[in-house]
C-alpha cells in the first residue's frame, strides 16, 4: 500500500502529493487515537501536513515545478562513488552483496591494533580504552557481563550502579566500529587509517571488550579478517526497539510510534486534560544538589557593559592554529585538564621547558618565531584555553 502511493508521488502527480500523509499511515498501522486537526499521522506518531489546494498548514506552496524536468547536476563516475561511499552496513539485507555491504577485504591483528592504539588513540581514550577527561570509554571490561547492567536504573539512589554503555556491552553492530574508526578517527586527523589498520584496531577493540567470534576468544594472537568480521555477533544485538532489520522494516516503525506508551509520550483530548489536583500526592520539590553544574564558558552574566580589552600583542588563537595545533590538538590542548600534570611543577618551569624545548617532544618555542613574552602568552592561552 505504502509503496504504491510513494511510487505515485514520485511520478509527479499533484494529486498524489496530496495523498502523501494518507499513504504513510497505511491500513495496517493506523493509529488508534489522534486528536490532530489535520488528521494525518506521520511515522513519528505526530502530524503530517500534506499540501492541499496549494497550502501545507500555514504555508502557501508553489507546486508548478511538478511535472517539469529539472535535470540539475550530472551522474557521478564509479570512482567518485567509490571514493565517498565508504560506509559499512550491518548486513541483514546486504550480506550477499559485498559492494553494497561496504566491508572491504583485509586483515589486521590484535597485536598491530594495540601498537596503533598506543601510538594514535591512547592519549585521548586512555589505557585499554578506559576513557575519561571528556573522551568516551571504548571498553569497561567483559562485554557479556556488562550487557547485563543495561537494566540498571538509578531512580533515586545516586550510589547505585548505572548501566554501562560501551561498544562491547551496548552497540548492536560491529560494522559501526569499523566504519567509524576508518572515517572518523583518530579525531585530530580522521580518514588516515588503511583498511588493514582499521581491521587491526577493530580487533583490538574486540580484544579489550573480551569478546569472542564464532566461539573463539579474540585473544592477543587473534587476526581479524573480513570473513571472521561477518561472523561477529554483538551481545546486545537484540537490545533495541523498534526492529529495523530486514527489507520491510518501516511498517513496524510506524506501528511503534503510533503507540505513545512505547516511548513515554502522553495523549489526551484537550477538554479532558487535568486542570486541578493534577500532581501525584507524594510528589515533592527536588532542588539542585550542591552547586549543580555552573562552570560555564564564558561565565553566566546578564550585565550590559563594555567588554574588557585584552592587551594582546599577538592573536593567540591564530598562532596556536599555525604553530601548535598540529601537536597540541590531541594532547595538552588549550584548556585541557592534562595541563594540571605540567603546571604542578610551577609555571616558570613550564615557561622554561617550552622556551628551551624538551627531550620528550616539545621543540624549543614549538619551532615558532616568537619573543619570550609572546611565547609566554601562548603558554597562558594553552593552559587556560582563553
Amino acid at each position, binding site marked *: 500500500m505504502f509503496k504504491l502511493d510513494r511510487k505515485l*508521488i*514520485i511520478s509527479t502527480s499533484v494529486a498524489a502529493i496530496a495523498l502523501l500523509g494518507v499513504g*504513510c499511515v497505511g491500513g495496517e498501522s493506523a493509529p488508534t487515537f489522534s*486528536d490532530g*486537526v489535520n488528521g494525518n499521522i*506521520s*511515522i513519528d*506518531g*505526530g*502530524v503530517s501536513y500534506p499540501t492541499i489546494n496549494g497550502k501545507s*498548514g*500555514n*504555508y502557501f506552496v508553489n507546486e508548478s515545478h511538478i511535472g517539469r524536468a529539472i535535470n*540539475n547536476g550530472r551522474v557521478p563516475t564509479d570512482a*567518485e*562513488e567509490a571514493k565517498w*561511499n565508504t560506509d559499512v*552496513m550491518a548486513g*541483514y539485507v546486504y550480506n550477499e552483496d559485498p559492494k553494497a555491504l561496504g566491508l572491504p577485504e583485509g586483515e589486521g591483528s590484535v597485536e598491530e591494533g594495540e601498537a596503533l592504539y598506543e601510538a594514535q588513540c591512547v592519549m585521548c581514550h586512555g589505557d585499554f580504552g578506559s576513557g575519561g577527561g*571528556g573522551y568516551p570509554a571504548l571498553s569497561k571490561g567483559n562485554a557479556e557481563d556488562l550487557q547485563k547492567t*543495561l*537494566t*540498571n*536504573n538509578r531512580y533515586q539512589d545516586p550510589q547505585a550502579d548505572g548501566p554501562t554503555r560501551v561498544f562491547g556491552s*551496548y*552497540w548492536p553492530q560491529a*560494522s*559501526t566500529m569499523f*566504519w567509524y574508526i576508518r*572515517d572518523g578517527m583518530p*579525531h585530530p*586527523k580522521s*580518514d588516515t587509517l588503511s583498511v588493514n589498520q582499521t581491521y587491526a584496531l577493530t580487533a583490538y577493540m574486540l580484544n579489550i571488550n573480551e569478546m569472542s567470534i564464532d566461539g573463539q576468544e579474540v585473544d592477543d594472537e587473534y587476526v581479524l579478517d573480513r570473513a571472521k568480521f561477518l561472523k561477529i555477533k554483538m551481545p546486545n544485538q537484540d537490545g533495541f*526497539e*523498534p526492529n*529495523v532489520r530486514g527489507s520491510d*522494516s518501516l511498517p513496524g*516503525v510506524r506501528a511503534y*510510534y503510533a503507540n505513545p506508551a*512505547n*516511548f513515554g509520550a*502522553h*495523549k*489526551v483530548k484537550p477538554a479532558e*486534560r487535568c486542570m486541578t489536583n493534577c*500532581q501525584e500526592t507524594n*510528589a*515533592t*520539590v*527536588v*532542588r*539542585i544538589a550542591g552547586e*549543580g*553544574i555552573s*562552570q560555564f564558558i*564564558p561565565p553566566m552574566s*546578564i550585565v550590559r*557593559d*563594555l567588554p574588557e580589552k585584552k592587551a594582546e600583542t599577538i592573536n593567540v588563537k591564530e598562532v596556536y592554529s599555525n604553530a601548535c595545533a598540529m601537536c597540541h590538538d590531541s594532547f595538552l590542548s588549550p584548556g*585541557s585538564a592534562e595541563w594540571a600534570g605540567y603546571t604542578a611543577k610551577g609555571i616558570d618551569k613550564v615557561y622554561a621547558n617550552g622556551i628551551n624545548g624538551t627531550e620528550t617532544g616539545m621543540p624549543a618555542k614549538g619551532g615558532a618565531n616568537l619573543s619570550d613574552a609572546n611565547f609566554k602568552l601562548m603558554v597562558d592561552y594553552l593552559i587556560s584555553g582563553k
Partner: protein
Amino acid sequence: MNNKKSQEETTIDRRDFFKKAAAFSATALAGTSLLANEVTGEGDPAIMHHTKWGQVWGDPITTNLYGVPSPYEHNVTRRSTSLLSSGNFRASIAVTPIHESQGIITPNGLFFSRSHGGTAHVDPNEFRLMIHGLVDKPIVLTLEQLKRYPSVTRTHFIECPANGGQEWRGPQFNSVQFAKGFMASAEWTGVYIKTILEDLGLKPEAQWMLAEGSDNSKMGRTIPVDKVLDDAMIVWGQNGEALRPEQGYPARLLVPGWEGNLCVKWLRRLEFAVEPWYCKEETSKYTDLKPTGKAIQHFYANEVNSTVTSPSPEIDWSHLEDGATVEIEGLAWSGMGTITGVDISFDGGKNYVEAKLKGLVLQKSWTRWSIIHTYKKGETLLLTSRAMDDAGYIQPTIDEETKIMGVEAVYHRNAVETWEVTETGKVNHVQIRS
C-alpha cells in the same frame, strides 16, 4: 582643457579652507556656552547630562558594513561547559541564551551549535552533494546547481534531543540557557528532498536514506523515506543569509521537528537503501535506554515541550516592586505538530490555568506564550508550564515520564519543568517528583 588649477586658485582654495575651519571651531568652542540647553535641577543623570553619543558624530555609514551587535550585548552569547564537551571542545555543544531570546527567531550568531569533530570550514566552490543508491538516476550537484531547485522557506526549531537530558535524575543547571537552550529557531530556505527525487526517481524498494557530512567525523544518520518524502529539506539559507559555518555552511539537512543530530551539517552525500545504516550516532548514542534494558532506536521526533523563559534563574524577579504587573513568558514547541495550547501552574503542577499564545503559531516551530501576573513582594511560586500539540500529545509529569522511560534514557526528556520563585524573587530550577 587644462585640468591643473592655477597657482592662484589653489591659494584661494586654501585660504578659504582655513577661514571656514576657523569659523567652525569658533562656533564649536562657543557652542558649549551659547547653544547648550542649560536646564538644571533634579533628575536622572541619564536625562540631565549630555550623553556622549548625542553630541559627537556617530560612525560613518561605511563602518561595519556587515553589522555586529552593540558591544554592550557581549554577555548575550552562546555558552559551553567542559562537562558537556570532549577535552578539546571538538565534540561538544554551545547553547543558546534563551533567557535573552525574543520572538521565535534566533539570530544566527546565537544559534546553538553541536559538532562531533569541530566546526568545518567548507569551501563552497568545492562543495559537492552526491545522491545515489536506490535511485533511478544518481547525481552529483554543485552548490549552484543545488540552489537552482525551486525553493521553500520555513520557520522551524532545531533541538538536540539531549535538551534537558542531564536532568533525568534531578535538576542540575540553575540556568534556562543550559536546562533548555540546546535548541534554537530560524527561518530556513532550501529545497524539499522530494522535489529532487521527482527528477531522480526513487526505487520502490528504498526504505531508508543515509545523510552524511563532509566534516572530519563524517557525521551520518539514517532517515526513513516517510520523512524524506514528507518535509525533509536540504537548506542553504538561515534567516535570510547563508548558513553559518556552525550550522553547516554551505548546506545541511533539515528534518523538521526531529532530533537536531539528524539535520546533518556540511552535507556531502545522501544514499538510499533497503535497510538502515547503524551509524555511531544512532547506536552508541541517540538511543534511549528503558528500564526493561531495551533501548529505543530511531527515536526521531522531539516531543511536545515548553519552558518558562521569563522569569528565569538568569533574569529573576528580585528587582520587582510590590504590585508590579509582569508578563510571565515562555516558549512551547513540538516536533510532532503545531502547539495548540499552553497551561501554566503557580503551584508546581497541582492546578493549571490557560496561558495565551502570542504571535505566529507555526508547525514544528517555537511558539511564544504568556500570562500577565501581579507580583506580590515576598510571594513564593512554583511556575510550571505544560504544552499540547495538534497530534494530541501533552507534556507528561516527571513521574509519568520516568515510569515508562526510567532515568537512564539521556534523550527525549519532555516532562514539565518548574521554576521556584523564592521570597526574595530569586528563581531556582527545581523538579516536582516523587
